[in-house]
């Protein structure tokens, strides 16, 4: 159980304009700006939940993960994870968590991956049988058999990321923090990583907190979304309810043999976006007109050969959310 209340952290940033004159000036006098990275942050996460933590760049996502994993000390506020305060009881706390920072590496560069695993085994005091079982299972699920004996420096990014994730799960953590785990991965690796995280959550009940800019990650993995902006939680809800609330637009593509899309008389709530000789794309506002009404309005005026109705991508939803809350 993760419980966060009124968490605040402010960073002091020395700012100046460019150029020689300002550089010299800043030698004697620096102007600092206070940036509130976390501003009275509140949320709680139950055991076994899988939560997507999203927000634009600089919203405070990584800062939150750092506080939760005990490596950043906040200015004020409380945070308890299974009854412990992460930064005060760091060593006890980190035994229960696994962390993957997508942009950093925990594997030793010059030695085979398995050496890092053995080191982690002793660092986390993992019993022999548990270690063996976990390595076998992770090797199987993440397809690591060839990779473990390869030096880290010779792995591709996708291979390395699979090893990084395995490394952070060797000690059976109850909570897994993933900070952009799919950054820079190809489609196959992304899917492998997502499937694995899902399975781990389902089979072991591992709590997963995922920060990402990849909306497919969110769509594939998480039911609950926390939207952060300006250091505050702006929206906390399920992905489907967010979709219902924010995605009221549908794109309707109609194929027809004899099309004069321009001359159609369209009811309110439907607008023509693109017109071609054999095809037209309409935008439909479902708060005004239902999908079936829209189809019948068009089919009464032209012969429909084929038709598809699409929901705009999750990226569109998120950018709408960001605009709505003015977090950009």
């Amino acid at each position, binding site marked *: 159980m993760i419980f966060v209340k009124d968490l605040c952290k402010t960073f002091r940033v020395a700012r100046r304009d460019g150029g020689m004159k300002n550089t010299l000036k800043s030698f004697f006098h620096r102007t600092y700006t206070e940036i509130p990275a976390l501003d009275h942050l509140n949320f709680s996460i139950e055991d076994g939940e899988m939560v997507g933590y999203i927000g634009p760049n600089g919203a405070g996502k990584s800062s939150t993960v750092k506080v939760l*994993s005990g*490596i*950043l000390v906040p200015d004020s506020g409380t945070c308890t994870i299974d009854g412990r305060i992460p930064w005060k009881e760091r060593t006890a706390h980190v035994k229960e968590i696994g962390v993957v920072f997508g942009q950093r590496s*925990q594997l030793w560069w010059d*030695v085979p991956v398995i050496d890092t695993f053995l080191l982690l085994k002793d660092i986390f005091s993992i019993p022999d049988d548990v270690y063996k079982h976990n390595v076998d299972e992770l090797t199987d699920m993440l397809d690591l058999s060839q990779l473990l004996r390869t030096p880290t420096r010779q792995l591709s990014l996708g291979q390395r990321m699979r090893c990084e994730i395995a490394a952070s799960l060797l000690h059976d953590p109850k909570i897994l923090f993933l900070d952009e785990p799919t950054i820079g991965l190809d489609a196959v690796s992304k899917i492998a990583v997502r499937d694995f995280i899902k399975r781990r959550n389902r089979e072991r009940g591992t709590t997963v907190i995922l920060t990402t800019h990849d909306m497919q990650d969110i769509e594939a993995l998480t039911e609950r979304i926390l939207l952060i902006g300006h250091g505050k939680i702006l929206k906390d809800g399920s992905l489907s309810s967010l979709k219902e609330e924010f995605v009221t637009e549908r794109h309707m593509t109609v194929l027809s043999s004899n099309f004069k899309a321009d001359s159609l008389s369209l009811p309110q709530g439907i607008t023509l976006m693109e017109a071609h000789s054999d095809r037209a794309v309409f935008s439909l506002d479902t708060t005004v007109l239902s999908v079936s009404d829209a189809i019948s309005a068009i089919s009464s005026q032209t012969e429909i050969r084929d038709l598809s109705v699409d929901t705009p991508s999750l990226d569109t939803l998120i950018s709408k959310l960001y605009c709505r809350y003015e977090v950009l």
Partner: protein
Amino acid sequence: MAFLQKYLTFFKMRIRCGLQYRTAALAGIATQFCWGFMYILLYHAFRNSDPAAYPMTAEQTATYIWLQQAFLTLFASWQLENDLIAQIKDGTVAYDLCRPVSLYPMWFCKCMASRLSRAMLRFLPILLICGFLPAGYRMCLPTSFLCLGLFLLSLTLAFLLTIAILMPVHISVFFLLNESGIRSVFANVMDFCCGGLIPIPLMPAALQKFLSFTPFLYMQNTPYLIYNGYLPISDALRAICIQLCWLVFFIPLGVWMMKKALRRTVIQGG
């Protein structure tokens, strides 16, 4: 034991990494021979001009120089642990903080291991070959087993003290964000004061007196002088006690600085 196991494994891992660099070791051995001969020739020239004014015998000088060359990597003051500094600078230290270990002992182990691994490849060949050189250039045996024992004890303490003094230098990167300034100033001052450039017995009396109030006199200088018989046993025992005192001062200082540094550390970026 389980508690120590973590640090021991870490130590072994670092040693394994360090032992990979065979070419560097061979090149190091060659360099150290050249330096050693050069120094011995130089000091023999000084000694021949006025043997009465020279504090050590020719054998003692040669022995001091060869010990210094053989264990150079244990005490090298300019050799900061670049891994650690890079970790602080690029934020990978975040991962070290996500481990159930204390950072100070872990980093201490890392420094020990990388220095030891470098020394392990070098000191035996140097000492072996130097034992068979012509008189005046030969590395001598210690005068007694007691002397050898005290040398080994003092060598260990001097090694630990060197790392304990360099730990705050590493930790200061948390505050300074760049190590090049402190590295170049500290490395040179420390190297000189420890007798790395000129053996301490050859320095002016006033400077020797001053250095006796600093930890520097009790680093590499002490074990070498015990080995070559320059320090009588009673002085050797006293020096070993002072080594212990300095260790008791510098280790808590480093632990305290580390605590301070981690409280205010912000791992920047994504």
